[in-house]
């Protein structure tokens, strides 16, 4: 299968990024769940309460990074799962760009929502 080898097909970077984001997400996901279910009960959430939290720069930055890393980790995971299933050729490329597009839309919309939650606008 030597004809498949090409330096442009290295999978190492995505593998490493998947692990690096994993380490970040372990902490932030646990924090997120804890804060919004145990400290503040989900049923008592109001726009005003959310705005107070999101208006803190540190919290806002953490949540935005949470969004970006989670999107990468999740979508990359889906892509890997599909390659593992033997997705190849044109279909693989189509799926790849579809996933990239979905990720960009998710991050864009997420950012819009996050900004709307602050007192900035």
């Amino acid at each position, binding site marked *: 299968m030597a004809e498949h080898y090409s330096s442009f097909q290295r999978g190492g970077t995505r593998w490493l990024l998947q*692990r690096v984001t*994993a*380490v970040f*997400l*372990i902490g932030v*996901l*646990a924090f997120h*769940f804890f804060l919004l*279910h*145990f400290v503040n*009960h*989900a*049923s008592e*959430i*109001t*726009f*005003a309460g*959310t*705005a107070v939290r999101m208006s803190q720069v540190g919290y806002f930055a953490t949540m935005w990074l949470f*969004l970006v890393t*989670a*999107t990468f980790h*999740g*979508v990359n*995971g*889906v892509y890997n*799962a599909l390659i593992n299933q033997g997705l190849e050729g044109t279909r693989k490329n189509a799926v790849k760009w579809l996933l990239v597009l*979905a990720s960009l839309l*998710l991050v864009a*919309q*997420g950012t*819009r*929502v996050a900004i*709307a*939650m602050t007192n900035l606008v």
Partner: protein
Amino acid sequence: MSHSYDRGFIEDFGRWREFSAGMWAWIFHKFTGWVLIGYLFTHIAVLSTATASDPAVYTDTLQGLEALVIVRFLEVGLLAVAVFHILNGVRLLFVDLGVGLEAQDRSFYASLVLTGAITVASVPTFVGGVLA
């Protein structure tokens, strides 16, 4: 691989009774992963109500959802899924570092038990209010 005939379950998940710890860990990790990425998209969609000009839309939507018993139970499920993905994720990170590979089956069972314990312990917090 093109098969000369269909061996069906012989080659597929019909053999699940014979799966070992590592295989189960992979299946659960993949399943919980699909759930979490699915939830992320839904989550952002629901939170998009915050972009409405009236802040009450956001508050009413979230509190309306939280008033539903089924949503509370789904949240418990989501917690279980997230906790397992986190714990097994930690296990996988150790496997990637080449640490404790001999104990990979026991660490999987440990993450299962811990997930169960944390989930059960969280039920009152999640369900409290709607049932009481």
